[in-house]
């Protein structure tokens, strides 16, 4: 019996301590950040991701293993701008090793004034929909990782530059792809406001959302839905875009009433590995392809 308890407690200990640590430990909050950091980090750096693929970043609740992961981290990359609001108290205890990628970006957009702000000005956190801003993330990531493993700094800088080239190629590809949408059809209806940066860079116009403001938890009024339906009908909007982590029942009902369709998008997280959007680059291509397919079709 004693042997049993001893081996049991040993197993438990191993579970929490985990495998021996190889190299520097870097933790990223979202799967998007995790992918980008992995592209730049070399062999000496182990990259962990806190949030799950296919899950809403707003609705994250840490498990003990997640806290163990954070406590072992040498650096923690977060999106910032209150995206990780649920984790704020925990992240605060880690002090300087937390690197917020978006807090110091130029040209940040104000959040929708209605509904979203709780007495203070909110900033739209969905920065990753603009690859030119993600390119600025890459500078911060490369600098941080080089500092962490100075011996690999030249390699890290080289990979970062390569990745930035891929980002600008992506940017050009998006501009060409969106050209297939006639100018008068460049209008978006989404579940909530996620495409602020994308619209600002690529010249699309948000004409309505199913849920008011920046949060999916707010409840619309009958007047909101009636005016959304009028907007969709009068502008002949062909599709409503809804995130995979959002309850789509209301959007589906609006689509059924207006003869449009609902197209599901990944918005805050990548798909499962081997899914259609399992890296940042494929995530953006998937999003743009879905937008073009939804909007370019003549209704």
């Amino acid at each position, binding site marked *: 019996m004693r042997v049993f308890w001893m081996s049991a407690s040993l197993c438990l200990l191993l579970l929490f301590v985990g495998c021996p640590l190889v190299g520097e430990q870097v933790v990223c909050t979202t799967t998007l950040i995790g992918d980008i950091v992995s592209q730049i980090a070399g062999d000496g750096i182990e990259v962990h991701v806190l949030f*799950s*693929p*296919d*899950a*809403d970043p707003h*609705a*994250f*609740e840490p*498990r003990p293993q997640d806290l163990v992961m954070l406590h072992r981290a040498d650096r923690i990359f977060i999106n910032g701008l209150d995206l990780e609001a649920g984790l704020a108290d925990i992240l605060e205890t880690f002090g300087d090793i937390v690197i917020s990628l978006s807090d110091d970006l130029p040209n940040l957009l104000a959040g929708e004034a209605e509904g979203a702000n709780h007495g203070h000005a909110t900033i739209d956190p969905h920065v990753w929909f603009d690859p030119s801003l993600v390119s600025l993330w890459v500078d911060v990531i490369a600098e941080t990782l080089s500092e962490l493993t100075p011996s690999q700094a030249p390699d890290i800088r080289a990979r970062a530059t390569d990745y930035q080239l891929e980002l600008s190629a992506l940017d050009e590809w998006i501009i060409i792809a969106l050209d297939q949408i006639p100018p008068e059809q460049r209008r978006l209806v989404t579940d909530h406001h996620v495409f602020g940066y994308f619209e600002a860079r690529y010249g699309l116009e948000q004409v309505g959302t199913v849920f008011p403001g920046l949060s999916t938890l*707010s*409840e*619309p*009024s*009958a*007047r*909101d*839905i*009636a005016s959304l*339906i009028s907007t969709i009908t009068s502008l002949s909007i062909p599709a409503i875009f809804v995130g995979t*982590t959002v*309850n789509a*029942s*209301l*959007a*589906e*009902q*609006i689509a*059924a*009433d207006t003869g449009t369709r609902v197209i599901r998008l990944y918005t805050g997280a990548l798909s*499962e590995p081997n899914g259609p959007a399992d890296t940042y680059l494929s995530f953006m291509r998937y999003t743009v392809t879905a937008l073009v397919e939804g909007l370019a079709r003549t209704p």
Partner: protein
Amino acid sequence: MLEWLIAPLDYAFMVRGILAAVAVGILCSTVGAFVVLRGMTFIGDALAHAILPGLAVGFLTAGEGNRDSLFWWALATAIVTSLGMGWISERTRFREDAAIGIVFAGMFALGIALISTVRGFSVDLVHFLFGNVLGVSNHDLVLIASFGGTVLLILALFYKELVIVSFDITLARTLRIRAGFYRYLLFVLIAITVVLSLQTVGIGLMLAMLVTPASTAHLLTKRLPSMLLLGSLLGALSGIIGLYLSFYFGVASGAAIVLVSIAFFLIALAATTVGGFVRRTRNA
């Protein structure tokens, strides 16, 4: 005035929303009369959370896109949970609210535990099932009509037994009514009502409709049949008036309906208070 009343009905979602709000209002306030009189108003919230483990399993087996199968999982879990609540309160002679509290906390924790073992799961799972009175589909209306109709039919058929078992256990013994069976039946009817309302109109509206119209009616009349009728009327009216307010003043629809039902309650409370005061001063 007529224009004002008809304009919202141009929208199909308003017509479906009003139908659903009226049907759920009638169903919830009828079942709610038993809930309020037996002092178990906590059961609505408890069942809404206790279905979490069922939702988790349903999610795992069916995939998140399938809301229809989630409804069946939720319904089955709610029925099992309500039977468990009935069983514990029978075995222990605790008040029903203690049994409800124990089972609710246990089931909710079980659901959280299940979810936490699987990565890629949203903690906000319960919200996936919850409906919105503005997003009611034709399928939802069919569900309400069939299940709600069945619940009301069973209530009507066994009305006498359910009333005696609920309020006069001595009489039930004298008449040799199987008290256990009818108590369980009532729990199951409540479970069906709760899940049906959750799926179609959401949690806030369900909680308010289960308790408020029946309580308001209880203030105004002590006779159960008139309490059931008055409660249904108030429940249905709250739904209609609330949706019109939501349409014309841009208030969130669920909140508008709840506030209208609360307004009815406050008016009734004021009326009975003033009425009681007048009667007392006359007698004095």
